[in-house]
């Protein structure tokens, strides 16, 4: 439904009720002349194959069926052999060592039209970047064939959880979008509870909430330096932070003791440290999220009696309710394409994650369960990640919480693996 057709790529997409039939692609062995480069090749092939398959738009034709086993980087494929096994596209690559580092060469072929449609050569200084090379090649293939922007060379920041549900230890953690264990890192030590991390569009900062000395405040984590800096350093709780599209400001909730601890939305300029109040109402105002052009903010408010979704101008003017359905709404997040708002809704005992147009029309539910929360967009606006929590029991069992990925058509849901429980996922922009 969101696939645009790229004429050059000769993509044939079958859409039945929003479901996309995956396109078959063959990926040859990624050749390496010595044991190191052969190992890099195996890793790369696995990353690329997993990425493309997990997107739901491709599947990798089983290697055992391949008739031609040559390196097809410098040699024209026998397209008939690949047609026979119904591969629509064919990827071949090799890895070698050069005096500048590790070099990858890649060719992408359109099998049915018997022609090369993409070629690439790139060199990295050392093997620490191998995973990123795999993601980058995946993005190129995805973009070339679907005509959409890729999303593989990205990271997910989330909250890692462990321990009893009433004394949960929560740490910031970060990983590649595929959740691969080799990419996983903890960013905080678990001494203080952390919640709701979000990436800056500039890719270098994460804003989140931390209970340092039992004071819940908004912080910024610098991925380059590892430094943590408080943003909302004044009496009263600050929470629910998100960056503005230019990464120069953070919009967040502030619960002012001089305002009966009622949460209002504030904008904090990170350069001048000046804050401006955007909402003024006796209800709770929280979970603000900027439109990608920076002109509007969607947020959650119970000003009408129950929590609903509202949109306002960036200066707080022209507040309009957009949620129209029954139920309790929350967690609105503006799509990076600008056209949709993802949200959670609690109704009839279940949480729902859905999307609606920015005027609140065409609401549709993508996934429903007992406890779902924290939708976050892929940078290309085609997928959502969120967390799903199981019911808990009086004896302390249950309550497991996991991070999930889903196409906004509602198809292709899968778990993103994390070493412990995971919640509050947020996606980086394309790196």
């Amino acid at each position: 439904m969101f696939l645009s057709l790229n004429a050059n790529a000769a993509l044939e997409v079958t859409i039945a009720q929003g479901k996309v039939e995956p396109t078959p692609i063959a990926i040859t062995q990624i050749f390496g002349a010595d044991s190191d480069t052969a190992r890099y090749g195996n890793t790369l092939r696995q990353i690329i194959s997993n990425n493309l398959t997990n997107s739901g738009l491709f599947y990798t034709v089983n290697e055992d069926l391949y008739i031609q086993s040559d390196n097809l980087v410098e040699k024209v494929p026998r397209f008939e052999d690949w047609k026979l096994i119904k591969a629509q596209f064919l990827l071949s690559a090799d890895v070698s060592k050069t005096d500048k580092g590790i070099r990858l060469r890649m060719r992408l072929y359109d099998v049915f039209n018997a022609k090369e449609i993409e070629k690439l050569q790139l060199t990295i200084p050392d093997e620490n970047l191998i995973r990123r090379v795999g993601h980058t090649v995946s993005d190129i293939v995805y973009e070339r064939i679907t005509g959409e922007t890729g999303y593989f060379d990205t990271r997910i920041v989330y909250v890692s959880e462990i321990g009893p549900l009433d004394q949960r230890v929560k740490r910031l953690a970060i990983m590649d979008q595929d959740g691969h264990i080799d990419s996983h890192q903890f960013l905080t030590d678990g001494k203080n509870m952390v919640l709701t991390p979000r990436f800056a569009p500039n890719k270098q900062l994460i804003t989140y909430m931390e209970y340092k000395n039992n004071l819940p405040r908004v912080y910024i984590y610098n991925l380059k330096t590892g430094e943590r800096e408080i943003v909302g350093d004044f009496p009263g709780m600050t929470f629910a932070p998100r960056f503005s599209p230019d990464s120069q400001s953070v919009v967040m909730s502030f619960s002012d003791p001089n305002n009966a601890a009622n949460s209002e939305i504030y904008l904090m300029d990170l350069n001048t440290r000046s804050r401006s109040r955007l909402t003024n109402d006796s209800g709770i105002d929280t979970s603000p999220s900027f439109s990608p052009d920076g002109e509007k903010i969607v947020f959650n408010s119970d000003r009408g009696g129950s929590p609903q979704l509202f949109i306002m101008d960036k200066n707080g003017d022209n507040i309009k309710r957009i949620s129209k359905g029954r139920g309790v709404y929350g967690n609105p997040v503006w799509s990076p394409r600008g056209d949709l708002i993802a949200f959670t809704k609690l109704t009839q005992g279940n949480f729902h994650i859905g999307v609606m147009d920015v005027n609140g029309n065409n609401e549709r539910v993508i996934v429903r369960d007992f406890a779902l929360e924290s939708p976050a967009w892929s940078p290309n606006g085609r997928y959502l990640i969120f967390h799903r929590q199981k019911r808990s029991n009086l004896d302390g069992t249950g309550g497991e919480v996991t991070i999930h990925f889903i196409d906004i058509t509602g198809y292709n849901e899968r778990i993103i693996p994390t070493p412990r429980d995971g919640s509050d996922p947020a996606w980086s922009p394309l790196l």
Partner: protein
Amino acid sequence: MLKNLFMLIVAGFFLASCAATKTEQGGDTDAASASASSSSGGEITAGTQEDLIVNVGDRVFFEFDSSELTVDAQATLDAQAAWLMQYPDTNITVEGHADERGTREYNLALGDKRAFSVYSYLAQAGIDTNRMEYVSWGKERPEVIGSDETAYSQNRRGVTLVSN
């Protein structure tokens, strides 16, 4: 993207070199778990948390999605105020909590309103605000684990903790 990749070749991969901690988990030192510790028997020392729990009541409960103090809650807080008058050297932190049936952020806001309801009631009852702090834990620190109304009704609470 290719341009991006070229730039990263030059600049190196900042995420890979970030100063992330790789240590195993530390203990969670959050004080919240200290709430509602039960009596271990024997004499109860006057003016302590245990005294507050056993002889006054350390908590009030809220209706769903509400931060208004019920009649029962007000009675409990009247007793807490009297107790705090009796022990003028005692300082407290009021914690506001929510059940799990709301978003994390909304429940943080709700928990803060609940904590503030308790805090301001005690202030109006004559307790010096210099003796009191308040904090929201949203739905992060349930008293009772469980996904049913029995647990939820115990978790929608304001808890008064002796902090010194």
